[in-house]
């Protein structure tokens, strides 16, 4: 029974889940929708019965007292109880699990920064040393240095900055420090069940663990309307005229692929560094 109840989420048309916490959010969503359906169907049946009985059939006498049973009141108590259950049982623990209990950073954690701007996502990797260089608004140059990274700052030389291309290794805890250069955006990864506003002047941490590589995902969605298209980063907050196409790409790699990609990017950086002194 519980199985069945919890599984309503599978019929809500949610995107494929690809993060370790996602199924819990989905399950909660399933529970809430059960409550909604029960209430709606319950009252709906009562409603239709009443309309038939007192609208079309009974035309003589009005019964002023109406309903004598206390079913309505019990129903209300049931709703209250259910809501309390959802709050205590799901909402509170889940919120800390997915939003506020920031995990400790270990060697295994992937830390990156994401800086949103009209209308692109800048992804900032700390490079080999694992530490981010400093960024300054004054150094911003849309062509070559969109996040204003100071290459001469202590940890800045090896940092990797990509545009709209985010790579993450599978099954690793990821922490993203999210901010924005200009207006409010919202960093949304529908398949990861991640959404967080990117607010200028603020750096907000988000964390999740992807559990499915892009290749696996592509296999999973074979035959659906989006066949052949991998994970994407969506902007969920109105941010200007091109909000509708502020799209980034997320690739979940295996460990090896990820490291290979990082190396490749580091090489690129070196080549650039030769003819361009910061």
């Amino acid at each position: 029974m519980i199985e069945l109840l919890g599984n309503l989420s599978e019929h809500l048309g949610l995107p494929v889940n690809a993060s370790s916490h996602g199924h819990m959010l989905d399950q909660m969503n399933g529970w809430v929708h059960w409550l909604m359906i029960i209430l709606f169907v319950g009252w709906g049946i009562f409603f239709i019965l009443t309309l038939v009985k007192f609208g079309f059939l009974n035309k003589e006498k009005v019964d002023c007292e109406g309903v004598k049973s206390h079913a309505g009141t019990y129903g209300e108590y049931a709703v209250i109880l259910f809501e309390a259950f959802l709050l205590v049982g799901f909402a509170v623990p889940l919120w800390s699990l997915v939003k506020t209990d920031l995990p400790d950073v270990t060697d295994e954690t992937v830390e990156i920064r994401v800086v949103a701007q009209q209308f692109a996502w800048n992804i900032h990797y700390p490079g080999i040393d694992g530490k981010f260089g400093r960024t300054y608004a004054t150094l911003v140059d849309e062509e070559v240095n969109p996040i204003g990274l100071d290459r001469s700052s202590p940890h800045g030389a090896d940092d990797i900055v990509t545009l709209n291309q985010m790579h993450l290794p599978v099954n690793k805890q990821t922490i993203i420090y999210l901010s924005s250069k200009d207006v409010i955006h919202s960093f949304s990864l529908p398949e990861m069940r991640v959404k967080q506003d990117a607010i200028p002047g603020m750096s907000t941490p988000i964390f999740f663990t992807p559990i499915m590589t892009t290749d696996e995902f592509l296999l999973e969605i074979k035959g659906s309307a989006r066949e052949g298209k991998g994970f994407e980063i969506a902007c969920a907050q109105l941010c200007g005229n091109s909000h509708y196409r502020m799209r980034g790409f997320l690739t979940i790699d295996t460990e090896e692929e990820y490291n290979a990609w990082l190396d490749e990017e580091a090489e690129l950086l070196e080549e650039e560094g030769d003819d361009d002194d910061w």
Partner: protein
Amino acid sequence: MSHDDIQHHVKTYIKVFIALMFLTLLTVGASYIDFDISPQFRSGAIFVGLAIASFKGYMVASEFMHLNNEKKMIYWVLGLTVFFFIFCLSIPVLWEANLMGDTNFEQSPPKIEGGHH
């Protein structure tokens, strides 16, 4: 209200006036005194300053605006308003304290000679 009542009121107005004057000077004076445990938050000074202001406000409201002797309906309206007022004031503070994000992460950018471009 009878003539005598009013006469009585007028006496109160004068007294309140004098008290308000005194408190104004007091609050200015107090602002030069250092009540603070830490210079960062100045909580002592804020507390003293607002306490005096609240007392002044109370006197204006209760005497000049006759709130010490008003009808029930008006107390209801104001009670409700004050409740929401306090709410409106306190949430931003609590909010800031409970924000996940870090609002002071970006140190002010150094002034670079010539800047960019």
